[in-house]
């Protein structure tokens, strides 16, 4: 097992899936010769040639729509949006076609594509390079929305996404691309889409999170244990849609107190859905209002104020404390 960054782990997933299946294709802006602006697709073109690792013209709807076509003819395109902030250019292709061609053709066709995009804040980037709008896609029936949180689960989930017979939107928390390394087995590993995981066990309060925010939550949990002696259970959603409401409901029933944390804007975000499911499934177990520790309902500011925007360790701790004090 080698210690890898998330960038390397995703690269490994692509490399191995492309080796295994000559129908797996990579396409996008600068994914070929340049290896992607984050180097996620590095060396793929050298290895598999420009027919399989395609530098496309600069057009996101084009990339998505072209991928849909490739998928219809039996290939497994893994296309990249250079930043998730530009994926809305392709919204109509995803909503009207990727998500619907299986149904529209009564199952005769399906669209086994993956749309990868770095998303989220924390890398001191320009405007449009820090958004978190996973809720758009999660609200779209027919799409799956996956967000990994570590190199190892990123690799395993991406392999599953590539093999999935349906379209998967795969948002990569770019703040985690090189934030830390983790052992990633050379041998094949997959993780089921639609399942979340317990990232940390605890009995006093449940914090539900995903993506880069998960790591602030983990740090907050450690500190809360140290400072307050509180045992925080942390759930890592991994898949936003379809949402695995079993695992977190079960945890909530045990702890009775829940916080949801994500960096996307609060209103109409994934946190709201988590709360709705909790209310539907575990209402009587809730001993305190479920608090949302999230990005604000504003345009994420440029990088000097980004850290004040993003829900960091302190804000999570405060949210947990308020929930416990209720």
């Amino acid at each position, binding site marked *: 097992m080698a210690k890898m960054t998330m960038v390397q782990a995703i690269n490994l997933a692509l490399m191995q899936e492309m080796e295994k299946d000559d129908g797996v*294709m990579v396409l996008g802006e600068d994914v070929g010769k340049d290896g992607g602006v984050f180097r996620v697709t590095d060396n793929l073109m050298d290895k598999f040639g420009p*027919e*399989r690792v*395609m530098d*496309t*013209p600069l*057009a996101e*709807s*084009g990339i*998505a*729509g*072209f*991928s*849909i*076509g*490739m*998928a*219809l*003819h*039996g*290939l497994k*395109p893994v296309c990249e949006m250079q930043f998730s902030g530009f994926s809305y250019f392709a919204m*109509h*292709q995803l909503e*009207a*076609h990727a998500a619907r*061609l*299986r*149904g*529209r*053709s*009564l*199952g*005769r*066709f*399906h669209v086994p594509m993956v749309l990868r995009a770095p998303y989220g804040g924390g890398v001191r980037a320009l405007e449009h390079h820090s958004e978190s709008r996973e809720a758009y896609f999660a609200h779209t*029936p*027919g799409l*799956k929305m996956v967000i990994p949180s570590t190199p190892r689960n990123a690799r395993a989930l991406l392999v599953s996404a590539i093999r999935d*017979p*349906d379209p998967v939107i795969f948002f990569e928390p770019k703040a985690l691309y090189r934030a830390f390394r983790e052992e990633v087995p050379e041998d094949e590993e997959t993780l089921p889409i*639609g399942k979340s995981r317990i990232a940390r066990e605890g009995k006093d309060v449940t914090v539900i999170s995903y993506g880069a925010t998960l790591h602030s939550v983990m740090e907050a949990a450690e500190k809360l244990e140290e400072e307050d002696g509180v045992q925080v259970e942390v759930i890592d959603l991994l898949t936003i849609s*379809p*949402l695995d*409401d*079993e695992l977190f409901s079960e945890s909530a029933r045990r702890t009775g107190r829940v916080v949801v944390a994500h960096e996307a804007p609060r209103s109409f975000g994934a946190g709201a859905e988590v709360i709705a499911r909790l209310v539907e499934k575990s209402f009587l177990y809730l001993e305190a209002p479920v608090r949302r520790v999230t990005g604000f309902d504003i345009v994420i500011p440029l990088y000097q104020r980004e850290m004040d925007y993003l829900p960091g360790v302190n804000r999570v701790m405060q949210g947990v404390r308020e929930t416990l004090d209720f």
Partner: protein
Amino acid sequence: MPRKDINLPYKIQYLSILDENGKLDKKLDPNLSEDLLMKLYRAMVLSRKFDERMLTLQRQGKIGTFAPIKGQEAQIGAVAVLEPDDWLVPSFREMAAELWRGKKMENILSLYAGYNEGGEIPEGFNNLPVSIPVGSQTLHAAGIAYAIRYRKQKQVAMTFFGDGATSEGDFHEAMNFAAVFQVPAIFICQNNHWAISVPRSHQTRSKTLAQKALAYEMPGIQVDGNDVLAVYAAAKEAVDRGRSGEGPTFIECVTYRMSVHTTADDPKKYRSEEEVEGWVKKDPITRFEKYLRDKNLMDDDQVKATEEEVSGEIKEAVGRWEDFIKKTPDPLSMFEHLLEELPPHVEQQREELKAEQAQRKGGK
């Protein structure tokens, strides 16, 4: 002004073979077999009659909104060039082309009667279902064609779209991708002069739509889209080009939407009767019939026989469709084909509906 002219490759040409009176330009005759000529005729008549039947059914409230194709039957010339495993990537006004490629009339009726079952794809054919978001399907054809090229297959992908569709960004991106990757895609623009109420002249300022191909250095041609032989010939050239690895082609078929945009539309709001009548003279079926008569392939009796035959076929199809409706398909079917596996929370929603249905049946 002593500025330097830049020489551009490709020019835009216009192709017409059968004129409005069914007279053939011999130099351009694509020399189709008599069998094929008769098949084309029959298919055009079938489409016309079925279109009329659908309009009646719609007016009777038996089916919902649909987009009649009257006047655009020569589109069959384009798909007649294809093999079943070639891809047809239609918009919503290719009923004639779809019928040619195996689509069952009862399915078309079901679709417009609001049953998802109507989306059934004819076996053995690579036909995509109807695509309503204007222009969006052109990208799928480009991607399919790339996959064909990658797999070193000999298929092509032929996509249809309207004059209005050329204004959409997706059309532009599809043309560009197709040209850059030199894929075997054929872009068939059905310039029927109107995008609902917006005339071609207001949709874009260019003299022709065909010239838009120049922006991508793609061969482009304008053809008389009511001349099934011209449509066939241009499509044949394009398909051959595609199969031999020479990349995509853009074909502007100049035709006319003789009927309403959809059954929800009232063209009197925006166009004159005279304009429509002007196009009656250019009807693709009448001129083709004249040509076949001149060629002694057709006479009054045969015309009548064909019409009776297709009417019979339509009647049978309507019967099969009525049987389908009588079976009143289960509303729970709406949960089918969302994803390969229904997620648990949607499964649960399915159960909610099921319980509701049961309750409803069990007398309230």
